[in-house]
């Protein structure tokens, strides 16, 4: 299920705005699905609270606390806001992606619905990368953070709570090693 996948290796039918023709996506990563649980639970509460209120706490509707004229309007607004809450949280999760290509790493962040930030650095600028898996759930479900030190203006990239961090880290290191070998080879070739 692409709609709920946080770990896509060599994904097909996926592209990003500044992708070059000969550039291949190696990983497309999102936060682990488990990080969505808090807002999913809250959405569930939002959607079911009026029904549960009627079933458990009172014989009257939750919205009947208001004058009759406003109860229907309040109900409509409640579910409209609930729908927006779910849509916005899903959009932010879905489009906050970390992309590793054979040329660079890209971090696309959408804060809220109206703020977008895109950071990228070529693989040749990467100096060091480390990953951490810390906590009970990250250990059980295998997700964690990857920090990537670069020599560029933006000194550090951070892939937050991505699945299989060891595998991604390993792949990044392989790519860096290949690039350094190639550069070393071309430098010695120039001598």
């Amino acid at each position, binding site marked *: 299920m*692409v*709609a709920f996948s946080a770990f896509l290796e060599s*994904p097909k*039918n*996926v*592209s*990003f*705005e500044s992708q070059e023709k000969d550039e291949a996506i190696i990983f*497309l990563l999102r936060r682990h699905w488990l990080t969505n649980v808090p807002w999913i639970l809250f959405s569930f509460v939002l959607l079911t609270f009026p029904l549960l209120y009627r079933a458990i706490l009172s014989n009257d509707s939750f919205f009947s606390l208001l*004058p009759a*004229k*406003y109860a*229907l*309007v309040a109900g*409509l*607004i409640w579910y*409209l806001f609930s*729908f*927006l809450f779910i*849509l*916005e949280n*899903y*959009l932010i999760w*879905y*489009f906050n*992606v970390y*992309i590793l290509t054979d040329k660079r790493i890209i971090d*696309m962040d*959408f804060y809220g*619905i*109206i703020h*977008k930030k*895109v950071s990228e650095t070529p693989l040749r600028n990467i100096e060091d990368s480390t990953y951490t898996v810390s906590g009970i759930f990250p250990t059980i479900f295998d997700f964690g953070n990857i920090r990537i030190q670069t020599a560029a203006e933006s000194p550090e990239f951070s892939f937050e709570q991505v699945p299989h961090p060891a595998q991604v880290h390993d792949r990044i290191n392989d790519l860096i090693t290949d690039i350094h070998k190639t550069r070393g080879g071309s430098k010695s070739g120039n001598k």
Partner: protein
Amino acid sequence: METNNPLDLSIIIPFPNVNFTISIWLVTEVLLIIAFIIYTGFAALVVKQVYIMDEAVSTGGVSSYLKTFAWMHFIAAILVFVFVVLYLL
């Protein structure tokens, strides 16, 4: 227009021959309509943002569902706004 819980403004505005009584619900309705105008604008912004997000990272079929949901939300916001205006006023 309902006149429950009237606010008698003549206490603070000293014009003895003019009735300044307004309903708290009238204020609520006006604020609700203003809020809904802003909300409908925000719903349109969500639609635009989904298109911008999709341009940033295109993921095929899922994006079209997301656009549909964003449009559904926008249309629902307009319908609820129209309903609120017709039903309350």
